[in-house]
């Protein structure tokens, strides 16, 4: 018993000791290795400062971690009084842990914030972020891409990081095999349905997907639903009750999706695969088309060969005012409202938009940085050149940030699964959206006043 007790105390002592050294993250650590006669820059405070950065991005931009490390090294070499700790998160934990951190207003100085719209606004409205535009010059702001979705009350709240767009790609070899013209992918819904038929004849699914985790439902919504909207604020209006998801402009796309499912355009195991397993079908050359992101375009080119992969726009089924728009966005990095070193944090963030950093990001990851300064001559593939041309010439609209996350996840995504299961009709799906939104409105959501303002 004595030895047992001793063991317990030993363990507690060890854990307390280790906890002691780890607990130091809260207080700015004085690095013993730091040269004492380092010349601090005259404009910057001379005392030692520690910044904690929570970031995510490796899955979308493989190599982002390596780039981040090299930028931190470059920055801290110039500013020896600053230490920067990079903490990699995953997309779930960066949200989960940040909610807890925000609840007690303690946590990182810089945080990854997904895309724009509500993902940014919820933290803006809750007072968790400090606007980055307060620290940037108009010249610096001018070159950032996709700042509009991060703007509220005339201020830009997170700094654009790297670009993402939902792309549709197709396999030229399989198109030829199905007796289709590999240089003329379908452009209208009817052409797409005909393409599905041609693919069904050769026993290969026309479109690859994986609906088990439902995220692909969001991709389809982003690609299809925006085209029938009458204007940019239609979704927000339906959210606050000044419009309805039962209206034709919102409900039309459900019928289109239903037609695709009924025409057997997708792989038959669509419901049991998760998003990435669905994408893999295309990567293995087992499906004709795929909607995915920039990172997977690079993977598909690597797997299938440069000449086999084409990119196309999602076939149109309407000629509405927004039918030319496309969903592309930049991920963001924000400064927390409780950070004691906001200026230094901003200075570090702004350094990421310097020319060499922007170019280095693409060289390391193959994903463009969200800045017009990005040297487009660096682009390695024709497919990406085409994509960038579209991005720079077409209006942007991404619906994911335009409705409450609760409605997105408990109504929209499940309803797309319902269409895939054929357990919901297009009318049911529209009704589910409207009911889900109404139940959100009726449940005293926080910041409803801001929503109304934001919806114009």
């Amino acid at each position, binding site marked *: 018993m004595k030895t047992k007790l001793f063991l317990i105390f030993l363990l507690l002592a060890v854990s307390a000791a280790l906890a002691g050294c780890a607990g130091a993250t809260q207080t700015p650590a004085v690095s013993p290795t730091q040269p004492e006669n380092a010349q601090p820059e005259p404009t910057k405070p001379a005392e030692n400062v520690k910044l904690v950065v929570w970031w995510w991005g490796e899955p979308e931009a493989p190599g982002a971690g390596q780039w981040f490390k090299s930028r931190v090294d470059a920055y801290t070499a110039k500013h020896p009084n600053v230490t920067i700790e990079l903490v990699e998160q995953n997309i779930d934990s960066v949200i989960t842990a940040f909610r807890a951190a925000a609840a007690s207003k303690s946590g990182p100085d810089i945080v990854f914030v997904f895309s724009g719209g509500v993902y940014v606004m*919820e933290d803006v409205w809750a007072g968790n972020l400090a606007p980055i535009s307060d620290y940037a010059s108009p010249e610096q702001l001018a070159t950032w891409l996709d700042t509009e979705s991060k703007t509220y009350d005339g201020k830009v709240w997170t700094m654009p990081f790297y670009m993402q767009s939902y792309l549709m790609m197709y396999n030229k070899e399989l198109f030829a095999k199905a007796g289709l013209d590999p240089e003329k992918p379908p452009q209208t819904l009817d052409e797409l349905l005909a393409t599905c038929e041609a693919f069904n004849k050769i026993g290969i699914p026309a479109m690859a997907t994986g609906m088990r985790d439902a995220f692909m439902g969001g991709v389809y919504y982003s690609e299809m639903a925006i085209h029938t909207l009458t204007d940019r604020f239609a979704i927000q209006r339906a959210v606050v009750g000044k419009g309805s998801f039962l209206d034709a402009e919102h409900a039309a796309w459900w019928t289109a999706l239903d037609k695709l499912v009924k025409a057997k355009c997708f792989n038959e195991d669509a419901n049991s695969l998760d998003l990435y397993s669905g994408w893999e079908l295309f990567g293995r050359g087992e499906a004709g088309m795929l909607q995915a992101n920039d990172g997977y375009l690079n993977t598909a080119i690597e797997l299938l060969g440069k000449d086999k992969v084409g990119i196309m726009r999602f076939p149109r089924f309407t000629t509405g005012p927004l039918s030319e728009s496309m969903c592309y966005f930049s991920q963001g990095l924000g400064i927390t409202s409780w950070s004691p070193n906001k200026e230094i944090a901003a200075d570090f963030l702004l350094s990421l938009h310097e020319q060499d950093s922007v170019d280095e990001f693409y060289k390391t990851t193959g994903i463009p940085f969200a800045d017009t300064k990005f040297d487009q001559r660096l682009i390695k593939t024709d497919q990406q050149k085409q994509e960038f041309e579209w991005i720079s010439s077409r209006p942007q609209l991404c619906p994911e940030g335009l409705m409450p996350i609760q409605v997105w996840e*408990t109504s929209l995504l499940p309803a797309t699964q319902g269409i895939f*299961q054929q357990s919901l009709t297009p009318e049911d799906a529209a009704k589910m959206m409207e009911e889900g939104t109404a139940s959100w409105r009726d449940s005293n959501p926080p910041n409803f006043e801001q929503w109304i303002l934001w919806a114009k």
Partner: protein
Amino acid sequence: MVRSKLIGKQAGTAFLFLLPGLLLIGFVYLIPIINVIGLSLSKGVGENQTFAGLTNYQVILKDRLFQSAFLNNVKLLVIVPILTLGALIFASILYDRIRGWRIYQTVIFIPVVLAIAAMGITFGQLLQFKGLVNEFLRSIQLGFLTRDWLGDQNIALWTVGGVIIWKELGFGTILFLARLMSVEQDLFDAAKVDGASWWQRLWNVSIPQLVHVIEFYAILLVVTVFSFVFDYILILTNGGPNNSTIVGEFFIYKFGFIYNRFNIASTVAVLYLVVGIILMIVRYQIVKRIEE
């Protein structure tokens, strides 16, 4: 007089033994529960928190998603009798010391020690429509049994239940087996001499001897179903397809952490706590009845 003194002294000693536990429970449960009850009666959090009476409860009790989440918890309770009975049968078979029982006994416990997170990924692959499980069924001429295990909204919840059974069966089996092994052999021998069949011995000898362990195991399973299925759901189905596998804990996590709806999440948490208290009172009454 003497009696009350004795009780007084007993209470003092009891208090000393209870103190460390009560302090920790107070810290880990009491503060959060007060906080959660407060939030469930309010609108907004932190500086914006205002009293809202019972409106959150009215909203939540009418909410279709919450209703189906609660119903799913109740449906999953089916695994409690299945697992208890299954574990009893497996324990009895092992107790017969059939050939290779030591190896079986080792193997049956392996799923218990494997991390759910790890198993979720594996089962996600195994149970695909074109996955190994269906391939296997086809190869043994049972092709008509193939299903879209996780992709069909009518089956997904039961598949999750099946995975929980897979994971938890070994624990019950070993618990019961261990208890059986400490029962005196004479009891079984006597029953055999009396000509009792295998099933009769299970029913008349084993179960009465195992009552306490069975009760513990069943309670543990009920608790698992109500508040520890989150990992399974998150990794296997993410609540889908079409919300068919949402359970209370998943609901609380999503509303609290992802949707930024602390008040709603807290309300559901309070409701589940109330269910917990009711279940425990029922248990207490049943145990009292049995003991009488």
